[in-house]
């Protein structure tokens, strides 16, 4: 896959891709949806002409009319799968969730010359978790009901869209597609803004009264995918060009549906889906994590596995149908949502080439699955103490140690409800083949206020016996073995996510405001800067006119860093 993508602009390989490896159903689907796909195609053609100084533009446009239809599936895939290396068009950079960039101007060798280039204050924001999206030198910073487009080189604003009412609730980012960026509103509208001037291109309400959460939208096969928690976890797809509603998938079955029997007669409910998924264009599968069953802390009224809560699910991007699921935590009573970023990697596993899906889960285990069919391959602890399970079966089902249900007196469980990790993004580097993740070591005490009333939960506290401590850990991606760790002093809780690049670095912001650059191979700290506020967002990198930047939201500001010698 890597080879093919590196030859993105090579016609032969594109044609080859379309004829050989694009699944047939992709092409069939495209024929029914030709308009939007051809628009994608034109955007790509325009891009080519700029890349090649216009020399190929005319022949390309002519060719387009002949083979465009055949190729359309492949083009869509190629554009979505691997963005221009200078850009960061989606929450995780690419659809594979790797949060890895091939940019390598900033390296382990020159890291000491990194400096702050600009700061953009997002007035009215609050504990930003936004991941900025950058395309062609323009940075798009979203908020519920708001989008700021700023000059990614200087931090000066180009335009702002504000829809009433102003909201300070943190949101997690936007997505770029053709000439549009997408925004979710606090009253569950999905709005497509013109990326050039912030004009409203279309504005639709979520389907069926579902409440949109603040996860960054995801683009897959010409659709905008959004998700949410209420009334139950769900994913919805809309046509990216028109906003036309396409499909929904709901995380819990209706009574009578298959797998509704895993609730012991109780009404299936819960499974919140509040994080951005990942997408494999070749399999045309979306991957999402679902959250906990409800009632949250008491399980006696809902005996059974409670599908599809705390699951990793694969959904067909065209139809919204569930293709496979894998449940990390059956019958959860600790709120261990499986919503942590799903990282898609093609790598050999035990000598066999595999399409892998990697996840460091809140329940303390690092999972390796085959993403084509959901087959469980491996799980291994990535925190030092897991006391609720005694390993997993060969199918990946945890062997639960009894006595960890929340109680009126309080029950200690490791890891805590906050989790061994959580929403902060991990990163995978194809150079080191390490999976880097922000980890919280520690245990929690879970309480319920009554042992008989349903949903009598009150949550959890940190135990004083095992104080929490955050780490950045590098795991060997296919074995889960810890290679190195970095300890951000004072940070007791995860908050910020990570970024890796071809420059051999891992950008590791810390909970209490430091940003640190680590050597990707050794974990050695190379450079640091104090942003002066709590960090709860994940970093991105991009390039403008040959200058590489790394950006991160800290508190209510976005900081951009670059090398001193290319200062203007």
């Amino acid at each position, binding site marked *: 896959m890597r080879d093919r993508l590196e030859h993105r602009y090579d016609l032969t390989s594109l044609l080859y891709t379309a004829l050989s490896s694009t699944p047939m159903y992709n092409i069939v689907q495209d024929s029914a949806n030709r308009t939007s796909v051809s628009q994608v195609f034109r955007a790509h053609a325009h891009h080519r002409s700029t890349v090649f100084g216009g020399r190929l533009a005319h022949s390309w446009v002519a060719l387009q009319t002949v083979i465009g239809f055949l190729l359309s599936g492949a083009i869509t895939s190629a554009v979505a799968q691997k963005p221009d290396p200078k850009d960061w068009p989606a929450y995780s950079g690419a659809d594979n969730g790797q949060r890895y960039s091939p940019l390598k101007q900033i390296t382990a060798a020159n890291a000491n010359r990194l400096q702050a280039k600009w700061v953009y204050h997002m007035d009215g924001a609050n504990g930003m978790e936004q991941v900025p999206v950058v395309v062609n030198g323009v940075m798009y910073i979203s908020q519920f009901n708001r989008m700021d487009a700023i000059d990614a080189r200087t931090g*000066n604003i180009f335009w702002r869209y504000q829809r009433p009412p102003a909201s300070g609730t943190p949101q997690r980012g936007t997505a770029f597609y053709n000439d549009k960026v997408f925004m979710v509103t606090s009253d569950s509208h999905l709005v497509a803004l013109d990326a050039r001037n*912030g004009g409203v291109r279309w504005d639709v309400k979520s389907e069926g009264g579902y409440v949109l959460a603040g996860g960054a939208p995801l683009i897959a096969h010409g659709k905008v995918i959004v998700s949410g928690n209420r009334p139950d976890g769900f994913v919805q797809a809309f046509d990216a060009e028109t906003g036309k509603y396409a499909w929904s998938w709901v995380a819990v079955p209706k009574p009578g549906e298959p797998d509704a029997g895993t609730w012991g007669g109780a009404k299936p409910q819960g499974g919140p889906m509040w994080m951005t998924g990942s997408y494999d264009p070749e399999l045309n599968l979306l991957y999402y994590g679902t959250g906990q069953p409800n009632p949250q802390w008491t399980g006696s009224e809902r005996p059974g596995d409670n599908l599809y809560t705390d699951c990793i699910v694969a959904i067909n991007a065209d139809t919204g149908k569930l293709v496979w699921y894998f449940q990390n935590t059956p019958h959860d009573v600790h709120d261990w949502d499986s*919503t942590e970023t799903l990282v898609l990697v093609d790598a050999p596993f035990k000598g066999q080439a595999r399409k892998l899906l990697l996840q460091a889960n809140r329940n303390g285990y690092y999972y390796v699955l085959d993403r084509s069919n959901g087959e469980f391959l491996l799980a291994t602890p990535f925190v030092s103490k897991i006391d609720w399970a005694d390993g997993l079966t060969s199918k990946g089902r945890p062997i639960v140690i009894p006595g960890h249900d929340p109680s009126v007196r309080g029950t200690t469980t490791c890891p805590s409800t906050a989790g061994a990790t959580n929403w902060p993004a991990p990163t995978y580097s194809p150079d080191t083949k390490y999976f880097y993740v922000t980890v919280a070591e520690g245990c929690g005490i879970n309480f319920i206020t009554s042992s008989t009333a349903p949903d009598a939960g009150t949550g959890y506290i940190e135990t004083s016996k095992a104080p929490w401590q955050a780490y950045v850990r590098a795991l060997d991606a296919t074995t889960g073995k810890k290679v190195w760790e970095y300890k951000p002093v004072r940070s007791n809780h995860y908050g910020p996510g990570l970024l890796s690049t071809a420059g051999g670095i891992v950008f590791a912001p810390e909970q209490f405001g430091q940003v640190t650059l680590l050597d990707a191979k050794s974990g050695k700290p190379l450079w640091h800067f104090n942003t002066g506020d709590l960090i709860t967002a994940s970093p991105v990198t991009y390039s*403008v006119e040959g200058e590489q930047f790394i950006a991160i939201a800290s508190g209510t500001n976005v900081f951009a860093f670059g090398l001193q010698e290319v200062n203007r």
Partner: protein
Amino acid sequence: MNRALVTAALLLTRMVGPILAQRPAPGPPNPFQGKPEAVHEGESLYAQKCTGCHGPNGTDGEIGPALVSGDRTDFGATDGQVFNTIKNGIPGTPMGPQKLSDDEIWKIASYIHALRGTALDNPLPGNAAHGEQVFWGKGQCGNCHMLGGKGGLTAPDLNNIAGTRKASTIIDALTKEQHREYGSGGAHLKTLPTMDSYFPVHVTTADGKVIDGILLNQDGYSLQMLGNDQRLRSFDRAKLRRVDIEAKSLMPTDYDKRLTAEEFKDLLAFLTRQGTKPPPPTAGRGGPPRGEER
């Protein structure tokens, strides 16, 4: 136990707080709510009865306070409160009870509401459907402005123009060469504004190439624009030969002359209806929880 006490205390505070604050009752609803004609009748009544003290358009006068500024709501925030104030006066002030019929008072309240609110609260009368034809046709507004996902890029999107501007501001923008924009008039800004001037700009690069567009931002070191090629661009000033900014918007300001009176009226009826009404405040806890599941 402690938790229960805290909860009880919180509940008590929430119940008693509003009583302690002694907020005035909102008063009866305005029977002319949403009727643009009432605003116009209220305007002439206001001119006869109120301008002497409160100034034209409620902008401050010799005797009474300004009625439109956000921090002076003690004389009434709702239409009902304004009605009560006009009918009964404010004891101990020059504001006495006014000898007007209830309908007349309600119409004045409608006008004050319109002065305070955006155009969307009190859209102007006219044939909005015809105004839409004027917008895309004779008025040529859509050449530069986007609306409903269509139109040009070189001027602001008007999707929510009536939700963010007063009707009078929209009229000014269509008819007056000099009109206020955010941050003008020596205001001390609290937040960094966008540049809403949309001045044409011509940038000459070091090799003599001229790039035309609309100015979106600038400082001493850089300049940001929307090029006529519809690309957002950023320039390093040190690398430019020259920068020419036309300190005049491309926006025509003679719409009251280039359109017939009826066309102009209908265009305003259309524009003052283009907006997004804010969703009603959600009951219960405000928004999703802090932390994860947003």
